[in-house]
């Protein structure tokens, strides 16, 4: 079992890379959600301005 540290390192790094990528996808998705909210707000504001005319 003296090589256990290498095994631990290999699995640890592999899962860190996979989770980091999944986290990146999650962050991108959240950023897009924020952009959609921004678009919604802009559209609502413009509709209100048009209505005011």
């Amino acid at each position, binding site marked *: 079992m003296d090589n256990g540290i*290498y*095994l631990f390192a290999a699995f640890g790094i592999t899962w860190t890379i996979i989770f980091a990528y999944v986290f990146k996808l999650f962050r991108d998705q959240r950023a897009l959600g924020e952009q959609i909210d921004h678009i919604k707000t802009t559209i609502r504001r413009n509709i209100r301005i048009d209505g005011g*005319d």
Partner: protein
Amino acid sequence: MKRLQTLSIAFQVLTYVVMLFALYAIFLYAPVEKTMGVIQKIFYIHVPSAFLAYLAFLVTFIASILYLIRRETRWDTVAHCSVEIGVVFCTIVLITGPIWAKPIWNVWWTWDPRLTTTLILWFTYVAYLTLRRSVKENRRANLSAVFGIIGFINVPITFFSIRLWRTIHPVVITGQGLNMSRPMKFTLMWTMVAFCFLFFALLVSRIQIERLKLFIEEVTDIMEDMISKNSERN
């Protein structure tokens, strides 16, 4: 749309379950190899990662050809997303390989044909991603498709490098099939399946995000156009 979302979530849960079984098989079911000991278990993540990197680049190759024939943005999106995931798996291959090599070969790295060609493969597809960021939008898809096709030449070279040149890298698939015991074969196959599930789950999510990004860009452009026209009228 809601059905598609439910299917996507179900697939992700299934991926999670299959992956848990794969970890069980690696650590508790597969026997410890006599010569290498526990370090041999790295093989169960190293080989499927290499296989998936090749698969991802194959998907890019096919999608790039389809893009050049049909000129549909969706094929460019598939090619781009697949390269990104392929690079992730290729990175895992390049990290787990040296970790296995250190106690077995007594060196972290050697300029062996398999190792060298894999490193070139990684650089090729990192260059693909860099190219996409640096090229103007109107030329991006065309150039990427050409790169995706030419870059694929590296994949068979990397795969057959252990047969074409003299190498110290172990040969997993021989003329007699897989040279290992039945539980080891089963574990490898199960891990391959689990990694395939992971690959498709990541690819579907990545494509969905990319399509949403393109859609938002389009909507933003239309909206900005409308706002400027409105302000001109007023």
